[in-house]
């Protein structure tokens, strides 16, 4: 975060204005619409970055169950990084592809892409995350301020996700126990049985 970047509100507004095409389903096998590797390739061309075949392949492979959200975050990041402010920069040596790949993977583990657009705090986190991973801090902030705010935003979300995960596990346990009860085993009347 050594360099001062653009205004945070500018990027947050861009995220709010994400066109529906960038929230479409990633193509994986017979499912989905958007070929994410092609979008990433176009973005890299604008920034004069060669992503390499192996990296592009990672945007085209996977399963909807495991990789859908990761690829949708990559797609959203592509929209953000195609902003005029980023395009005015020389990003040839910046970690653009790692941001689109590993960065998307990190974000996708704790937040659904819809929430990155609709929730103000997640929008802010996404905007700060993009700037930070490319070595920038929001205009008008010190490095310490920018680091603190990003850490606090992502820590709060990770804590929420952890709580939700614990709740989900407790609920799954309750369902399994309910199904194992004698009363559940006795079932209930149906006019036919399969």
């Amino acid at each position, binding site marked *: 975060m050594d360099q001062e970047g653009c205004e945070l509100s500018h990027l947050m507004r861009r995220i709010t204005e994400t066109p529906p095409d960038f929230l479409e389903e990633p193509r994986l096998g017979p499912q989905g619409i958007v070929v994410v590797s092609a979008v990433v390739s176009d973005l890299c061309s604008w920034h004069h970055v060669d992503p390499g075949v192996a990296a592009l392949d990672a945007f085209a492979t996977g399963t909807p169950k495991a990789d859908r959200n990761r690829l949708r975050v990559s797609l959203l990041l592509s929209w953000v990084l195609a902003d005029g402010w980023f395009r005015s920069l020389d990003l040839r040596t910046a970690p653009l592809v790692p941001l689109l790949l590993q960065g998307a993977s990190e974000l996708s583990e704790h937040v659904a892409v819809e929430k990155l657009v609709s929730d103000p705090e997640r929008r802010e986190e996404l905007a700060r995350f993009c700037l930070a991973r490319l070595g920038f801090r929001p205009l008008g902030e010190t490095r310490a301020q920018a680091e603190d705010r990003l850490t606090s935003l992502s820590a709060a979300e990770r804590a929420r996700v952890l709580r939700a995960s614990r709740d989900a596990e407790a609920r799954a346990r309750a369902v399994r126990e309910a*199904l194992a009860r004698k009363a559940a085993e006795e079932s209930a009347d149906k006019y036919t049985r399969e």
Partner: protein
Amino acid sequence: MTDPSDAERYPTLSEAGRQMLQRLREHPHAPMFKNESGNRLTQQDVETVRAFQLEVAEAVVAEQREEAAPWLAEFLVGVYRDVPFYRAMGGAPRRLGDVPTVTRADLSHDVARFVPDSAPVERMINFRTSGTTGHPLLIASHPVVAASYLAFHQRALRRFDVTLRASSGDVGVVLLGYQRKCFTYVSVTPTLNEAGLVKLNLYPADWRNPEDRRKYLEDLRPEVLAGDPISFVELLKLGSTLRPRALLSTSMALLPALRQELEATFACPVVDLYSLNEAGPVAAFDARAGGHVLLQHRMLVEILDAAGKSAPSGERGEVTLTGGFNFCLPLVRYRTGDFASLELRASEPVLIGLEGRAPVRFRTHAGEWLNNIEVTHALHALALRQFRLHQAASGALLFRVAGRARHEAELREALLRLFGAEQALVIEELDNADGKLLQYSSELAP
């Protein structure tokens, strides 16, 4: 683990209902009931189920297109919000085709992940299936869901001009089994003013005297008999004078010869239901429609190819279900393992050529591969009640059939015409008490 009380099993039981239970249990010819169960419906549940019956009776089952299912978008949003398995994938896709399909193996792995957060655990019940695919399954359900089956049975029966009339003092239904081990009990149906419900096993060991089977059934005079083809074959052997108003057949294919024999013997319609523990009654066979007519108005049926792509109208593929009425287990693109094509006939969606489980391919003596539906067609003209065909790794065929002596010559001729005159073929008698039939199997892989 404490046993539920009768108050939990029959929350709305009246004196008339209690007397019905007593009659069913203590009848001089009653079987030895092995288990206990009940309707578990509160008065509010009864009203909910009655309202649902009206809704189902009046509903139109539309053409099976995403655009013709106005409930679908909201359903998907709800599932992606409330069901852990889907929530983990992010927000709901806008098109159903972008939702990954799931199979019995996914449900079998951990069904709890498919149960919505909104489903009340305190009243949850389960339906357990051993299955024929190697994936035993525990289905999460609810007393209201179980009671709601009747709405679809009534819809199916209306196609055959049967309106259920059983009420207080009558026996509404006897569910028949024929298995060495079978869950048996008595109950009453509150939505039919506590008409009696009996689930019994025709297997002789469940009775003090085998002759009691006929006497008990004849004295109960149930309005409906429900069962699978195996139990119906045993029912025929009893030589009873029963006159039910309808027979409901589930669980496995009902062959035309058995249907005709049942219709002639009992002088009533025999309705072959395509029903799954995972989804309830999906469709009912109606020869006038040429197949199984869909019954559920909040379910979307797709026919998918092996890659998960929608097959064009009229093309065979895997029957895949979305929606349904089990609010404890909403299905999204659930691949049933059953195969059919789907057509719109007289503005009704109809499953054509429905065959349970994945197609099995058989090798002829000349090395040509045949789909099991070709065997079905080749045997269609024969009056077979039940059969099973297995091909060993050597290519030899074992055909097991109920009533071997009567059918052997014509069967041999039909099968050798299909497989070649030199084909190794053994024909044996089928033992009915082996449980659910896996009709086709093979040790050979094409």
